[in-house]
């Protein structure tokens, strides 16, 4: 139970930092809305709904990238990460806390983006929404680990998209498939499989990313 309370404390810390500083979430919200508006002009007339679903996923992935790029910045600016690593808790709790906090930001951004998408472009059914939720899990689980990898290097803003996008390809396939395929269940399965594999992998390997030796 201490593990869960550690995770909860870490998530709360991230959310509180965000509530006070308001660095990330307003940027994500504005970004996703402006992306949707840009897509309206990028899509020629009569392209149809399928193309719009594809673009929704581009918007989601890039919005998540925006949030992930900021994810470890507070830790690095104030040297918090070193203290967290030294703290007597399991290191994977740090990853899980960050994943949950990022998930909250992403869901908040989508709470605005998805209604806007329905309003501007095309309706979303239950399968599509389930696809969004499952993909969010995968994006945040993989993304917070990859962001931690990128944060250690030079030019981290540059590195993160390069590291993250190839890993996100199956998520985009699953998400778009769930939205437009008549047989969306298979894509949800793919997303669930992805989430399971990569969440376990990230959970197990996070310790090696943040420790020095």
């Amino acid at each position: 139970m201490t593990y869960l309370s550690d995770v909860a404390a870490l998530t709360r810390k991230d959310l509180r930092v965000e509530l006070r500083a308001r660095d990330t979430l307003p940027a994500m919200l504005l970004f996703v809305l402006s992306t949707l508006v840009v897509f309206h002009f990028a899509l020629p007339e009569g392209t149809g709904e399928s193309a719009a679903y594809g673009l929704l996923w581009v918007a989601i992935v890039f919005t998540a990238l925006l949030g992930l790029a900021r994810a470890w910045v507070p830790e690095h600016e104030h040297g918090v990460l070193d203290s967290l690593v030294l703290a007597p808790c399991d290191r994977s709790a740090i990853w899980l806390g960050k994943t949950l906090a990022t998930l909250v930001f992403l869901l908040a951004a989508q709470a605005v983006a998805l209604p806007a998408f329905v309003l501007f472009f095309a309706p979303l059914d239950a399968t599509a929404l389930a696809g969004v939720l499952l993909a969010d899990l995968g994006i945040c689980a993989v993304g917070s680990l990859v962001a931690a990898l990128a944060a250690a290097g030079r030019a981290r803003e540059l590195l993160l998209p390069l590291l993250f996008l190839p890993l996100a390809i199956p998520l985009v396939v699953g998400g778009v498939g769930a939205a437009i395929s008549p047989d969306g269940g298979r894509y949800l399965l793919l997303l669930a499989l992805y989430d399971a594999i990569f969440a376990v992998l990230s959970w197990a390997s996070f310790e090696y990313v943040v420790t020095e030796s």
Partner: protein
Amino acid sequence: MGLALLMALFVAPEDADQGVSQRIFYIHVPIALTAYYCFGLGAWKALRLLWRGEERYDLESYVAIHQGTIFGALTLITGSIWAKASWGVWWTWDSNQLVLFLTLFLFYCAYFMLRFSLPEGPRRARSSAVYALFGVALIPVSFLAIRLAEDFIHPTTFTREGPQMTGTMFATFCVAWAAVTLLAYVLYRVELAGKRADRDLRELRELLS
């Protein structure tokens, strides 16, 4: 080792005379398979590094992935040439394998970006190892995803015409396969030796200065 190179250079093309566009098959498929086990080997070494913490696995993992990326790039090139010869286009999203290789190629290029942006040391070794492990998990998942994606990107799947493999063709294929594998192994050893010599030299220089 010399024999392996000779085989790769001479034996495989010599036997491969069953039609012009089929010929590249003997190079393309073994290269692709070799790239897979280079990636697999890289991930295995990465796992050993995280498990045992021995520093030498870092270089071995890096070299294996480096070889894998080179073979992956060659797969893309030969695949593209083959596509041009038999389907008339340089690139087709119909071929699952090609798309998978493109994904993997991008992924492993990012691996090098990550590696070169970190300062040398145990931290870099571990970070690269973790990312390399993500790579092997990505291979089956992407394969599945690309298979599924065919449904909505291309409703009709492309069936390749051409004869079943006969005995001699299969033999040629096996020879080519063995040759390319050996070639990859030789290159792996050579690069590893080179990189180790490089490192030792640098250490000596630091000691002397």
